Structure formats: structure tokens, C-alpha cells
């Protein structure tokens, strides 16, 4: 990415949907979600930011969670998307694409001198 310094408010806005998307790909746990977001170029998401988002999504019925014993390690809390979560993700993702396209239409292109 050319500009790694993305405004934090952008990340805050997109984080719930990005987290839901990562969990919808496969049943997973907090640290793996953080790694997935970092690999996608969203930067390092702190645990103190990530878990409240996961818990809010669960409270909204978009995720479920269960504790499982790790292989030779302490238990991990696994999250899975519910049907309502997948439905929400598809609707919000479509709306997000529309929104970003509209916003991009207003902005000067990277090569523009405007």
C-alpha cells in the first residue's frame, strides 16, 4: 500500500464489517482475525479494539462463540457467523461498495493536480 497511514476513523467505521467478513470466511478465533485483517492491509488491530467489536457482533446475533481447548495450549474462543450475520454482511458489503464508489466519484484521481 502506498500510504499506510490510514485515518483511524476509517478503520473504526469499517472494522465491524471487516471482522464479520473474516469470521464468515471460516470459524476462527480473535488472534487469527487480527492476523487476517493485518494481512488484508488494515494494519495491526489491538486486542482492546478487536474483542469489544467481536462481542458487540455476538450481542447483535451476528456471531456465536464457544470456548474450545487448544492443542497443548490454553482454550480459545472461536467465533462463527450466524445466518443473520451472513445476511447482514452481504447487505452491508453491497451498501459499502456503493458508498465508496460514490465517494470516490467526488475525489480527485491520484494523478490529478486538482
Amino acid at each position, binding site marked *: 500500500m502506498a500510504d499506510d497511514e490510514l485515518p483511524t476513523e476509517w478503520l473504526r467505521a469499517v472494522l465491524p464489517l471487516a471482522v464479520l467478513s473474516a469470521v464468515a470466511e471460516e470459524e476462527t*478465533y*480473535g*488472534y487469527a482475525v*487480527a492476523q487476517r485483517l493485518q494481512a488484508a492491509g488494515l494494519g495491526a488491530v*489491538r*486486542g*482492546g479494539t478487536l*474483542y*469489544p467489536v467481536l*462481542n*458487540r457482533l455476538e*450481542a447483535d446475533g451476528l456471531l456465536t462463540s464457544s*470456548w474450545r*481447548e*487448544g492443542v*497443548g*495450549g*490454553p*482454550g*480459545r*474462543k472461536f467465533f462463527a457467523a450466524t445466518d443473520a450475520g451472513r445476511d447482514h454482511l452481504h447487505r452491508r458489503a453491497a451498501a459499502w461498495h456503493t458508498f465508496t464508489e460514490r465517494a470516490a466519484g467526488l475525489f480527485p484521481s491520484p494523478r490529478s493536480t486538482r
Partner: protein
Amino acid sequence: MSTDPTPTVTEYGQSLVLHLRLQEVPPDRIGEIVAEVESHVADTGEDPVEAFGTPREYAASLTDEHRKPPWWWTTTTLVLAAAAGWLIGQGAFAVLLDEPYLGRSGWLWLATGLVLGIPPAYMVSRRAGEVRDPRTGRPLVRTPRWATLVFYAIPLLIVLVGWAAIELVT
């Protein structure tokens, strides 16, 4: 990455339990939140303060999820608890001295105090419930067995000492 199969609660976890208690978060949620932190730092090897902030900051950041009860609720609970304590004390004295209090039997005041004490006792027992680790089902913080005994023994002792003092004087 840690490979310890038995999760132990760190100093950070203990402190987080305390700060979440102060935010009046229900005990089952405290267990979940602390286990998430412990599990995450075991996976990442990060310092919990760097990953989550200090226990005070992290507990305060969760106020969106767990709002403290409004001030009037806390005030009502405190007033009911104080009234219950006063009536139980006066009722117990009246019963022990075999004299009415404000023209009524001590048993009546005692019973009224106990009934008034039900809502605050329920609130306290809900908040003071044991915090368990969802990974193991074991308590996260050990409460000494004598703590409950002391909680009930002190008011009883005050009434008995008062009664004994009055009996000695008269």
C-alpha cells in the same frame, strides 16, 4: 506462544476482574472478558497492557457494552440497605430486651427490616457472584471462606455486644 495447558490468571487478569467489578459488570461477563485477554496474550505473546491498555482503561472502554445502573437506582438500593440494617438492629435489640420499639413488637421491626433488605441483598449477591473462568469452570479469583462468615458475623456481634452491655448496666 505459550504452551501451558492450564490457564492461570495473571496479575493483569486479577486487576481487570477488580476494575470490571467496579464497573458493575456481571460476573459471567467478567469471566469471559478476562479469559479473552488471557487467551489472546497467550497466543500473541504480547504484553497485555500494550494489547488492551491498563486494566482500568480496558474496563472503562467497555462501558458501551455494560452501562452502570443510574444514580437513583444505586441511591435507592443504599437507602433500602441502610433502612433494613437499622430496622433489623432495632428489632433484634427489642426482641433480646423483650421490649417493644416505638410501641410495636421487635419481631415486627425485624421482619420489616428483612423484607426491605431483600432487594439490596439480591443486588449485592448478583454483583458479588463468583467469577469463573469459562475455559475451566474454576473460580478466577479465590474468595476466602471466612469472608462470608465475617460479613454476617460482624452485625450479629454488634447486636450481641450491645445487648450484653445493656444487660450488664441494668
